[in-house]
């Protein structure tokens, strides 16, 4: 189609004429864009001049030739009418040989059925799909199909995007995931085994142990009159040891139970929780002449029973390891933090709880050891205990996605600090940690 303009000089007379010229210009641009115009003749100062759109055409030709995607155009029989160099590279043939060949020749046998379906769809609607082509370097490609209505009739253009690397990555990711799943499974199994072992190892010995306790107390209660002072002393040692053994087994069981099962968290008022706890300790606190100071503590989301255990274990340590020359004093305070760090700025995400005492303390080089199972810094004849209390406290704090630490000075006192999230739900929601 040819558009012929007027004489090219516009008389500045009527706005209507300007409007008309503007509409004409817009129409021309639209015609150019949609490909209806191939050339224009403009009557300029040098007479009629022919402007073709070859230049634009060339840009796209070069672009298609240079791009790193393969491009082919097919006729309705699936014969390649045109292709770019990259496609020839993909199938590893000289450019001149590819034109005229049926496209199906480059499709892997096993995917042909799928490819025919894709072609059929492509002739009706523009679409995409993945196929494997006969190519060493780029076997896996994504096809974008679009029909074009050109002068020669309809043709189907296909852009081939290499997906081999993505596919490889996906494959590797899948393999790694499978591996991970297997490892998780194995870990689960071994965890279960361990759990079961801990359970059996702590359950079964309780039967004979109870018998030792029964008959030892029976001797003590029924036959003591026949015993020498020495025999009585030995008997007391047997009873004391078996009691300790029993406590040890119970503690191990409690510790191993912590590993099992999901945690149930609820919003808890720590001041109320501590009030309850201290009621249970009333007699011991009175006996020890101890003072316990508790500041205002926040409400946080915890497993109530477990956090109670943490406080209980730390406070009972404070009472146990008190100095002979001074009445025990325990100070419990809290502050809210932004981050899960001791020196974090104030915030609303975490809660730091400090439990400070004026007891015998310990050498700071043991500050990490004390949270290990069975770690005891003091002789058992001076201070009774199984060495599990702080290990349990650590495990519980960790189950609350928190951290625990201790610092101390010998002869001055210790401070136990743990930081736990204020809300556990947010942790699950955002998987922040």
């Amino acid at each position, binding site marked *: 189609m040819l558009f012929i303009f007027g004489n090219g000089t516009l008389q500045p007379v009527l706005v209507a004429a300007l409007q008309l010229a503007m509409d004409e210009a817009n129409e021309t641009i639209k015609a150019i864009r949609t490909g209806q115009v191939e050339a224009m003749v403009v009557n300029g100062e040098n007479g009629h001049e022919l402007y073709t759109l070859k230049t634009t055409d060339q840009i796209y030709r070069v672009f298609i030739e240079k791009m790193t995607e393969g491009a082919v155009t097919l006729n309705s029989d699936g014969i390649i009418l045109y292709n770019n160099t990259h496609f020839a590279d993909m199938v590893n043939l000289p450019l001149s040989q590819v034109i005229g060949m049926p496209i199906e020749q480059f499709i892997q046998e096993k995917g042909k059925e799928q490819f025919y379906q894709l072609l059929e769809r492509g002739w009706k609607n523009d679409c995409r799909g993945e196929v494997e082509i006969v190519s060493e370097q780029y076997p896996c490609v994504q096809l974008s199909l679009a029909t074009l209505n050109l002068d020669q009739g309809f043709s189907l253009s296909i852009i081939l995007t290499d997906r081999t690397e993505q596919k490889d990555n996906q494959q590797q990711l899948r393999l790694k995931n499978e591996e991970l799943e297997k490892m998780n499974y194995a870990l689960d199994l071994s965890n279960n085994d361990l759990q079961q072992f801990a359970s059996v190892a702590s359950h079964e010995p309780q*039967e004979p142990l*109870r018998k030792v306790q*029964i008959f030892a*107390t*029976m001797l003590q*209660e029924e036959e003591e009159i026949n015993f020498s002072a020495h025999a009585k002393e030995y008997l007391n040692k047997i009873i004391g040891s078996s009691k300790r053994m029993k406590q040890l087994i119970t503690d191990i*069981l409690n510790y191993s*139970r912590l590993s099992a099962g999901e945690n149930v968290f609820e919003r808890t008022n720590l001041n109320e929780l501590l009030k309850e706890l201290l009621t249970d300790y009333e007699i011991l606190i009175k006996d020890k002449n101890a003072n316990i100071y508790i500041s205002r503590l926040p409400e946080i989301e915890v497993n109530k029973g477990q956090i109670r255990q943490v406080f209980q274990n730390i406070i009972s340590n404070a009472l146990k390891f008190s100095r002979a020359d001074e009445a025990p004093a325990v100070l419990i305070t809290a502050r809210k933090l932004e981050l899960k760090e001791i020196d974090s700025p104030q915030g609303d995400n975490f809660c730091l709880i400090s439990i400070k005492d004026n007891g015998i303390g310990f050498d700071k080089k043991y500050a990490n050891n004390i949270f290990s199972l069975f770690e005891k810094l003091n002789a058992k004849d001076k201070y009774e205990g199984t060495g599990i209390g702080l290990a349990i406290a650590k495990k519980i704090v960790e189950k609350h996605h928190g951290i625990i630490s201790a610092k101390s000075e010998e002869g001055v006192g210790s401070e136990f600090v743990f930081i736990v999230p204020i809300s556990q739900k947010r942790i699950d929601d955002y998987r922040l940690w």
Partner: protein
Amino acid sequence: MVKRRILLADDDAEDRVIFHEYLGDRADITLLPFAENGVEVFNFLETAEGDNLPDIIILDQNMPKMNGRQTLEQLKTSGKYAGISVFVYSTYIDKTLVEYCKNLGAASVVTKPITRNEYHALMDNCIKFLKPATEVVSA
């Protein structure tokens, strides 16, 4: 004085002897012949006439053939013996066992006593548990 009839099922011979040793001379109870497992509990119940049925059954949890909670379940679903108070005792108890047995209708789940005092305390609790029920029956 009402003498409560107590049936103990425990496969551990020593525990049966100790039970008898510590509780045999209590004036407020009559110890029925011991059973060694759940099957023997039912054998006893089926031969016992109405008046001879126990008021209290104490079941050890770990027994061969039919353990404590299996016996408890069968007792409570039997209809005939569902009214008898059942206590389960074991060397070690955990929350799961306690909840399981309570749901089945156990009066209580306790750890096995060690000292004479603990044995008496167990029996006191068993009898205390019975009292309200008896009053309702006599009223």
